């Protein structure tokens, strides 16, 4: 089996690294990654813990398929309590770090306590040691990775680190690995910063085994064929990346624009996947250089970009002139449509610095959008922004404020608190497009009704990934449903939530679910672990994980009152497009959802449900 059955426990207060056996009973009940690590976290941490205190813990976790030849086997998760939300934080990342960790012989790393001085964890197969990181503190993710490679003398190490944003505890700071992949949301990077943990560097050469290699290769071969034949995973995503969605969602009439004042953006065509591939007027070259893959991934949806060196944001700064990780749809939406900025190069720059300083572009863009609306209202003035004319559509203002936020300077310090705290401070909390403190992403619930329920009930605060019903409501996967109706969406959301949790726990990328079902995933897991998972039992694991997370949140203080949406979505009708005249019909979906979940009318998992799921 692929489990190494070794957990690395790092006590940052004492500076020690110890080995523990992996709890195999829990591995059987929670499968791995998101599920298993959440179980560990909940068993060890007080739900009321202050996320930025030394009593909080931070877990890096792999799934059983991580590091194997399964398609998209690079995935790993960061689990903690989110400083942005106060809820369970579970952030999934790709790249190469997770596979390297597995190859080094570790299933999970648990960080506890707080180091007195900045340190990094150096893992080389079974050798794990905390080392001095004082020379790296204050440096960006990119510089940190270069320094780690230089220090170790090994070009092949993989790194996960925080930039200046995590160090200064920007509430949406990210953990960035392999320079441009990230565990992005809920401020997991701030937790790392609060512990004075700068980075983890990892080299693994031990290899990853599976129980029944022949059956495994057959199962993965079958999955690879399905992925290659599917139009989304085999063509749309490799060609345009997630940015294939910009024009699609805009035409669906569900692109939240200017802090969700509108549902369509007149500049959408200038900031989407097609625009990235078009030669620029300025220098005749395209923003997009190529696509690229994470570890083990045949989909290869990564964007590699190259900016115009004469663009105002990067002029005279050669470090931004080369090939870097380019825009994803969520980032382009948040930095672009949400703020009204349609300068693709400016968005590319701001996305670069999200990777460089280590920040979540979704929360960043959405918070800037809220600040822009406050500025438009005259509630915030140039005196507050230090002279930055924070107007909707201003690429200059966007670039300046993103810089400031990453470096913790000027008004950027306030942006770094997220839109909930920012808008509360200035007396207009209704302008924060958040649920449970986290900003919702690039799909307007007025135009895609299921996403309203998704955001309202997501266990980590508003998030599209917990139940991407857009797949069904817009893309027709697995079956087309009508985005404008709330009928049937309660069941749809629950089904997506449970299945997604299972995909996450297995250690593969949720994007495979555009083509694969749990019937396809099961054989890979079974050949790996020599167990007998079915799509039913995998779905049950997903449901178990969902209820485990929900219960933690309730113990942390959340109630059904928090399963809601910003008033703008519930009351202000969409002004244009197919959803014109519609608001979110959350009220129609929520009671049915609670019932389908086996929860009380107050959204609390019933004893019957908890018992059925062995919780």
């Amino acid at each position, binding site marked *: 089996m692929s489990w190494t059955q070794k957990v690395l426990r790092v006590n940052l207060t004492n500076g020690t690294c110890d080995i523990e056996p992996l709890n195999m009973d829990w591995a059987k009940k929670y499968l791995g990654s998101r599920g298993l690590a959440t179980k560990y976290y909940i068993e060890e941490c007080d739900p009321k813990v202050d996320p930025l205190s030394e009593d909080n813990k931070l877990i890096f976790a792999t799934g059983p398929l991580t590091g194997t*030849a399964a398609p998209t086997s690079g995935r790993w998760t960061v689990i903690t309590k989110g400083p942005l939300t106060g809820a369970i934080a579970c952030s999934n990342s790709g790249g190469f770090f997770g596979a390297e960790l597995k*190859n080094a012989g570790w299933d999970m790393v648990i960080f506890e306590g707080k180091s007195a001085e900045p340190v990094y964890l150096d893992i080389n197969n079974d050798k794990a040691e905390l080392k001095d990181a004082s020379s790296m503190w204050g440096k960006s993710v990119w510089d940190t990775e270069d320094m780690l490679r230089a220090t170790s003398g090994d070009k092949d190490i993989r790194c996960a680190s925080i930039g200046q944003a995590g160090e200064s505890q920007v509430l949406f700071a990210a953990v960035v690995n392999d320079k441009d992949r990230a565990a992005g949301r809920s401020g997991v990077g701030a937790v790392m910063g609060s512990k004075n943990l700068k980075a983890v560097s990892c080299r693994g*050469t031990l*290899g*990853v085994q599976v129980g029944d290699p022949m059956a495994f290769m057959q199962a993965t071969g079958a999955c*690879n064929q399905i992925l290659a034949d599917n139009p989304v995973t085999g063509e749309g995503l490799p060609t345009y990346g997630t940015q294939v969605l910009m024009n699609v969602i805009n035409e669906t009439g569900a692109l939240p624009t200017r802090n969700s004042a509108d549902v369509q953006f007149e500049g959408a065509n200038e900031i989407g996947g097609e625009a990235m591939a078009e030669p620029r007027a300025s220098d005749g070259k395209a923003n997009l250089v190529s696509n690229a893959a994470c570890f*083990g991934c045949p989909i290869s949806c990564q964007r590699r970009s190259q900016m115009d060196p004469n663009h105002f944001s990067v002029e005279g700064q050669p470090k931004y002139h080369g*090939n870097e990780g380019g825009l994803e749809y969520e980032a382009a939406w948040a930095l672009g449509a949400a703020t009204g900025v349609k300068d693709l190069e400016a968005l590319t720059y701001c996305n670069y610095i999200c990777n460089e300083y280590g920040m979540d572009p979704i929360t960043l863009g959405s918070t800037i959008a809220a600040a822009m609306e406050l500025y438009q209202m005259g509630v915030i003035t140039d005196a507050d922004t230090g002279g930055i004319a924070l107007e909707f559509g201003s690429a200059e203002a966007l670039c300046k404020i993103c810089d400031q936020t990453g470096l913790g300077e000027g008004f950027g310090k306030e942006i770094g608190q997220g839109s909930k705290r920012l808008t509360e401070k200035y007396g207009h909390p209704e302008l924060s497009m958040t649920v449970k403190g986290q900003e919702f992403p690039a799909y307007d619930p007025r135009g895609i009704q299921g996403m309203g329920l998704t955001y309202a009930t997501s266990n980590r605060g508003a998030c599209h990934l917990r139940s991407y019903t857009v797949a069904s409501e817009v893309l027709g996967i697995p079956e087309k449903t009508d985005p404008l109706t709330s009928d049937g969406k309660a069941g749809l959301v629950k089904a997506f939530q449970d299945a997604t949790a299972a995909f996450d726990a297995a250690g593969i990328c949720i994007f495979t679910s555009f083509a694969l079902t749990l019937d396809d995933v099961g054989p890979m897991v079974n050949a790996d672990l020599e167990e007998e998972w079915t799509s039913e039992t995998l779905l049950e694991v997903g449901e178990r994980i969902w209820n485990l997370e929900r219960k933690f949140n309730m113990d942390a203080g959340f109630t059904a009152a928090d399963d809601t949406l910003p008033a703008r979505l519930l009351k202000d009708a969409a002004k244009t497009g197919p959803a014109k005249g519609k608001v979110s019909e959350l009220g129609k979906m929520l009671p049915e959802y609670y019932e389908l979940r086996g929860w009380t009318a107050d959204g609390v998992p019933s004893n019957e449900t908890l018992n059925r799921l062995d919780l």
Partner: protein
Amino acid sequence: MVKVLHINATECTGCHQCEMACSYHHEGVFNPSKSRIKIFNFEETGRNVPYVCTQCADAWCLQACPVDAISVNADTGAKEVTAEICVGCKVCTIACPFGTINYNSVSTKVDKCDLCGGEPDCVKVCPTTALSFIEAENAGMEKMRHWAEKTDAGNQANS
């Protein structure tokens, strides 16, 4: 007709599935560090480039070996290391100008690509056309065709 493992780096996405297929074929585990084919990422250009032994007709490794542990597979043309004869002297790793034969400290022998005996697994798992197994004498054909089209004056406007 001998076939070669043909590399088209423009198509390589850097997924490393080839490295896992190779290590699985030879060692039974997924271990990119034990793969005989390697993917190199060049950060400045963002390019991913596979590289592997190209089975020299007049192979330095074969000539340098003091115990004749390297021989030619008559069917595939691959230069293969016979582990039982190899003494791990590593002279072949010095002789090879390309670095594609390397010492394995666990087995104490050297490892190199042997084309998996005629059906290279790396090619099977590559999701793009970055790796292909084609007739040796046609290896350049696609590139030639591409440039032939570009240089065809008769095909251009105003000719």
